[in-house]
């Protein structure tokens, strides 16, 4: 401070300097960045500190006891092992399925590919928890719709199918995470210079050889990006293990953290678990950044031809169509049919029976039960406010990362992307530790803060990638025509950014409507959300759960429809 005053002893120089710093275009975006960083650091530090504290007779003490007891607990290794099996399985299957679907849709003449191209994205918008519940209706051992259908019509017993298993969890995870890989892969597949493939064919490579040695290696960076996201996200996902594995006592990382904070709560153990998971996630994310930094080559040439569409032979057509039908059927159509059937039945026995047809479930959920009514209102409030706050933060951060001072950009970008892989339940734990003795505890506000903290990086990425495409000269020319910074933002930049703002807002809306992992730790009486209400109801009645799930589904599909109509794009960066 003193040296600063000396260096600028001229008072007018100092005011000039200060006024430069206090210009709105510096301060306003900086506020967004600071809020973002506080939102990340707060729960992270809280978890870290809590993990090394142990409460004894004479108060808190710093100790590694939480870690040592966790690391000597065989349940810990069981949970880690099961989580690894689930997320590895889901990753491998999603990559196979995501690549195949993307290739079939973008590079062949499969009938209806324009339609499937959109349909393949629908699972992206649905709730994994509801999906898992729907699959329990479809495929519960001995009473699932699928087993009953096969034994009733063909006399085939599918008794070995059991959705309450690691295999079942992998299956449902795969259905929901395939669109991630699909989205990553379809862009390069579509834009790839066809000459890269053609050159291989002309120089003697067969179709299969070209696929293995040229096409797949060229989109490998995209496949691996998708794979990493699927791996990290499905390892941290609480919803599906809760619905499919907890009933059989199969432990996983997120459900272990959840049970650690149930009565009798052991926050130390949960925090230690969380810290280990965070470290692994951060290492993975950094590894991916380095790998992509090295291999991100350009496969789009200036003047290439459109990639050739491959004319499928009849067998190929049948195979491609089957693949699509199985995917859309399992990921969208069958779960929705099952939910509808259950939600309109007064008694559910694993078969649809028109004698039991009723509206009572909807009536009860919508008008008869204060918990579900409250949950619906809360969810919609959280989603509307949360998405708006998230998009505002994203614009400010996007501005800072693309137009702000260049010096810290890379670091701030890395810091702001950290929550991308951190499981919701761990961030929820961090906010729970932070808020538990404050008035924020058991308010909707803390849930909202956790939502924004966990998911704003998605919005920031979407908006930031749009910033990249906007030439700064557009703003500069507005400034030189006399517009203030605020006017330039309002009249030039925001209209240009609008498609990405719509996309980001809808994405956050969808995520918040269905969020469970963070909410399950932070909700209290009065602040339940739809997803929480589904969990609470699941012990009482199939019908109520299904009806509420259908209501949530309508909100999500509504967002999907708006998304399609607005022609916003899911920008990948």
């Amino acid at each position, binding site marked *: 401070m003193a040296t600063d005053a000396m260096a600028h002893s001229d008072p007018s120089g100092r005011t000039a300097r200060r006024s430069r710093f206090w210009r709105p275009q510096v301060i306003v975006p900086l506020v967004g960045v600071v809020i973002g960083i506080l939102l990340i650091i707060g729960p992270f530090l809280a978890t870290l500190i809590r993990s090394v504290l142990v409460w004894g007779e004479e108060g808190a003490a710093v100790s590694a006891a939480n870690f040592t007891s966790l690391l000597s607990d065989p349940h810990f290794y069981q949970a880690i092992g099961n989580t690894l099996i689930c997320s590895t399985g889901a990753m491998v299957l999603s990559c196979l399925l995501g690549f195949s679907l993307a290739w079939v849709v973008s590079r062949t003449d499969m009938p209806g590919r324009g339609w499937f191209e959109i349909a393949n994205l629908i699972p992206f918008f649905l709730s994994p928890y509801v999906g898992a519940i729907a699959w329990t209706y479809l495929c519960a051992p001995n009473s699932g719709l699928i087993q009953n259908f096969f034994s009733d019509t063909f006399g085939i017993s599918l008794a070995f199918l059991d959705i309450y298993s690691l295999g079942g969890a992998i299956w449902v995870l795969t259905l929901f995470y395939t669109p991630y890989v699909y989205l990553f892969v379809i862009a390069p597949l579509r834009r790839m210079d066809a*000459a890269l493939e053609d050159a291989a064919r*002309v120089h*003697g490579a067969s179709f299969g050889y070209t696929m293995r040695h040229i096409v797949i290696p060229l989109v490998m960076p995209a496949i691996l990006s998708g794979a990493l996201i699927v791996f990290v996200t499905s390892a941290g996902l609480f919803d599906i293990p809760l619905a499919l594995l907890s009933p059989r006592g199969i432990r996983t990382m997120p459900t272990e953290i959840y049970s650690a904070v149930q009565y009798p709560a052991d926050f130390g153990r949960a925090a230690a678990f969380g810290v280990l998971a965070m470290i692994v996630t951060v290492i993975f994310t950094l590894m991916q950044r380095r790998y992509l930094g090295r291999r991100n080559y350009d496969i789009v040439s200036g003047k290439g031809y459109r990639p050739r569409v491959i004319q499928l032979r009849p067998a190929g057509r049948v195979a491609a169509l089957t693949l699509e039908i199985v995917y859309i059927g399992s990921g969208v159509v069958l779960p929705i049919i099952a939910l509808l059937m259950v939600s309109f039945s007064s008694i559910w026995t694993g078969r649809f029976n028109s004698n039991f047809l009723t509206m009572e479930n909807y009536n009860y959920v919508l008008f008869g039960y204060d918990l579900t009514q409250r949950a619906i209102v809360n969810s919609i409030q959280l989603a509307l406010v949360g998405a708006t706050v998230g998009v505002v933060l994203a614009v400010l951060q996007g501005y800072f990362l693309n137009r702000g001072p260049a010096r810290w950009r890379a670091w701030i970008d890395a810091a702001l992307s950290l929550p991308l892989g951190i499981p919701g339940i761990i961030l929820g734990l961090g906010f729970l530790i932070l808020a538990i003795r404050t008035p924020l505890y058991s308010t909707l506000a803390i849930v909202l803060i956790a939502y924004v903290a966990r998911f704003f990086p998605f919005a920031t990425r979407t908006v930031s990638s749009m910033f990249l495409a906007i030439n700064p000269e557009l703003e500069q020319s507005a400034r030189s025509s006399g517009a203030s910074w605020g006017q330039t933002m309002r009249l030039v930049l925001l209209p240009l950014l609008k498609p990405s703002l719509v996309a980001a807002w809808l994405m956050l809306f969808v995520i918040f409507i269905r969020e469970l992992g963070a909410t399950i730790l932070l909700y209290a009486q009065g602040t339940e959300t739809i997803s929480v209400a589904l969990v609470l109801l699941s012990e009482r009645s199939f019908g109520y759960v299904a009806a509420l799930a259908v209501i949530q589904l309508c909100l999500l599909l509504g967002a999907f429809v708006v998304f399609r109509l607005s022609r916003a794009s899911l920008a990948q960066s």
Partner: protein
Amino acid sequence: MEPPVSPSPSHFVRIEGLKKRFGDFVALNGVSFDVDDGSTLALLGPSGCGKTTMLRCIAGLETAEEGYIEIGGKVVFDSSSRVNLMPEQRELGIVFQSYAVWPHMTVAENVGFPLKVRRTPKAEIRERVTRILKLVGLGDWYDRPATQLSGGQQQRVALARALVHEPRLVLFDEALSNLDAQLREQMRMELKILQDRLNFTAIYVTHDQAEAFALAEHVVVMNRGHIETVGLPRDVFHRPQTPFVARFLGLNVHSGTVLSVGRVPDVANHEPLDADDVYAQVRLPDGETLWGRIGQDSPPRPGDDVLVCLRREHLGLSAPSVSGGIATQALAGRNGFIGTIRASSFLGLTEEYVIDVSGGELRAIQPVSGLDAGDPVAVTVRPCDCIILSEHRTLKATQRADLKKAG
């Protein structure tokens, strides 16, 4: 479909009646031509005329609806007997305009690819790749990742890859168009040398006429999916056969009416005549007359509408001696007419003029001559440089005549 011409052993590639459409759009409309063994054929034409489509049909990357393609005595495509070999069965090399160098491989892996898919032993691949890389001047780049190469170097890698397995036919699709002028010149020379050394047949697609004339033994000019002209570079250049070719080569094209036809033009500035040539006197729209050489086989009759084609460099400009006087006096009996300079632009050693003449404008290139906009000018041209074509000649006749000439 039976090929109409009996196969000649010197034709390495034979293409007959190739038709290809994209939806309703006809991209190739019955294209036929031959390429001699060991020679280079240039496919020349404006953007969108179907050159790339032609090449892709030959390579098997596109399937024509009709036609016949034979490479080195092997039928690779025949719509009548439903023969259609896959690209990898046609034993070609290809160089794309976008290079199509695979970014996930090293230079050596790129170049060795055609050998690797043919299961060549490792040691031999290494040896041949090293040899061809030396040949294209990339000897030191063997193990470098392909992404580190500059445009010109990628071009060479693509070239080496197309040649390493010693295909008998190599296809080039605007292979040099992304290079700067100097590098392009150099690569052209190197291509010639490589072709002499490796003795492959080449089909070379370009829209740059200078490149086509410099590289090729024969030139095919395409227009909207059909062939306008086939011939030796000199013939195509000096004796454009159709108005389209004339326009494509940048000639001034004006309409006129034939007054008389004769062996000897009745003007002062004609050169010693070629015994085969026939001349015609043509009346331009405003009444001026001009002698020119008839460029096609069947001469037009007096009264026919024709087109007069004038190369910019062949026009002589001079200030008329009597300003505002009678045209013939100003021209002093030479073949030409009077016009007015509208604009000029400086090109260095020369200057290009835009001249208003009756019925249109004319471009002429001259050594800097100090004429200004608004000046009247006498435009003269030797009758043998003034080419007279009729618009409605059937293309079949031209093609056949030229095929004979070229073969």
